[in-house]
């Protein structure tokens, strides 16, 4: 059998890859892709804990389903905002879209 810690290690690695994507990319859509990776890593964690610790309660799977729903809503809104920014400024480079910075 696969020990639980292996699933947690894979989820941690995927999460850190997502953090690297968010911090090291200049394109806003690429940053959103990093956020999706982080959300998937968290979901893998949730489902692994559900399977190994409490498989007859449905709380783990329900929690993961809610993370799915929230991730879909957030991606839709984020991409709509990026498209709107692109229409106004012709760029989605986050280094240039910094009007609210000090």
């Amino acid at each position: 059998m696969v020990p639980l810690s292996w699933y947690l290690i894979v989820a941690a690695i995927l999460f850190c890859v997502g953090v690297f994507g968010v911090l090291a990319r200049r394109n806003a859509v690429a940053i959103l892709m990093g956020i999706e990776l982080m959300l998937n890593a968290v979901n893998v964690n949730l489902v692994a804990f559900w399977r190994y610790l409490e498989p007859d309660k449905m709380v783990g799977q329900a929690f993961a389903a809610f993370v799915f729903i929230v991730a879909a809503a957030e991606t839709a809104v984020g991409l709509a905002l990026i498209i709107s920014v692109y229409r106004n400024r012709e760029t989605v480079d986050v280094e240039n879209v910094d009007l609210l910075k000090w």
Partner: protein
Amino acid sequence: MTTLQVMFFFFSLITVAGGLYTVIARNLFHAALGLIVSLAGVAALYALLEASFLAAAQVAIYIGAIAILIIFAVMLTRGVTGKNPVKDWWTYTITAIVCLLLLVVLLTTLFRFDWPQTAQAAVPADSIARLGKSLVDPSLYVLPFEVASVLLVAALIGSAYIARDKK
């Protein structure tokens, strides 16, 4: 090395490699394809964990909707020059070191505990039916379920409005 462990290694390798390609690829469309590979790997991990509903939902929702949305956004926000600007190599190195430090922190916290080597119990045979019932049971999760559907409707109407053509 049992078959299950070999399959686990294969799928997690696909997942992590897809994720790495997503965050490294210069061409954004290639990065979106790498994201799709990573999401498919996560769906396979769900199937290994006997969460069959979540595996199917992952393929349908993430790959079938979210990844397609991301590809649309990539195509709609192409720069005029077609080249994607990158940060300088010094920033990349510092970011990579910070992310490795975060990974070290996560792994040391993880290894403090004694996690079970095998699953404590078997998944009940009707787990999908139980999940469905728990989402509409008044004493369980019907409230978050309804709130989540309102959230989705609001988010999609809002994003359709924000991204509409203003001519």
